[in-house]
């Protein structure tokens, strides 16, 4: 493709004003749609990590009185 035909390709027979914005919107909107969850994923994992760090810190502090039950669903029936 030489220079002249390339520029005529971009000119789209005088309809560049309509064709290229359409394709631009297509690409930009889908790119945004693609990137949004990637950023959100990073944020979510960061939050999980910081929560884990907080819990570890609490556990370390609480380990002084020794046997504290592991967090979870370990409830049982305790008779008085």
């Amino acid at each position, binding site marked *: 493709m030489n220079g002249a035909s390339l520029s005529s390709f971009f000119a*789209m027979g005088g309809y560049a004003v309509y*064709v290229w914005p*359409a394709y631009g919107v297509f690409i930009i909107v889908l790119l945004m*749609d693609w990137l949004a*969850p990637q950023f959100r*994923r990073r944020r979510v*994992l960061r939050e999980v*990590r910081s929560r*884990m760090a907080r819990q570890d810190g609490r556990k370390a502090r609480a380990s002084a009185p020794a046997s504290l039950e592991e967090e979870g669903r370990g409830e049982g029936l305790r008779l008085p």
Partner: protein
Amino acid sequence: MANWIPLWLHKLSSPPVFYRFAGSLRPWAITLAVLLGVIALYGGLVLAPSDYQQGNDYRIIFIHVPCAWMSLFIYGVMGVAAFIALVWRIKLAEVIAMASAPIGAAFTFITLVTGSLWGERMWGTWWTWDARLTSELVLLFLYLGVIALYHSFEDRRQGARTAAFLALIGIINVPIVHFSVNWWNTLHQGSTIRLLGPSTIATSMLWPLLTMMAATKLYYIASLFGRARVDLLTLESGKDWVRQIAQNEVRG
């Protein structure tokens, strides 16, 4: 005989299993989508001859039509997922329904913009109250309503179920809107946009169109999986498998 279907479906609907499954499929889907998209664009923008009647601007249809189709298709997927979420209360179905909504809204938005660009060229106006454009606009509002309702709840799962109900109401609404707007158009003698005229389409135009349809489908799968994976991470952020992923990410 149908015993095996619920079994593998049940397994797949477990969040960590689906997370891995979607993660392994997603790169393939997006690669194929981009590849097909580039081929379709090349075919549509370069190889297809310019139409002797309409000039070059008909090339908008190579994105307008696939996007319009996807906007309806995704609403259908969302409706099915919403139905499953409400009847069987499956977490994955809620996630799929809610992850579909923004993608569908994006495609609807593209359809509207490209449609109005086309309208500007054909009738010298950005917006005409044509039956199809109006229905598409209503569809966009339905998507936005679902998204807004979902985000107005503090509890994600409750928001998802409520928005799923709205999506189902919308499914009944779309044909009614289309019918009423059509009736309204005959009453007011509005204009009709015909991107694909009754004339037969040349093969040189048809194959890029179909390729682009395949590309948008694959893109939807890839984007849906990406969003669903993040939503699952958020929903299950207290579970061990998410913690493991969070830790591995920091090392990797």
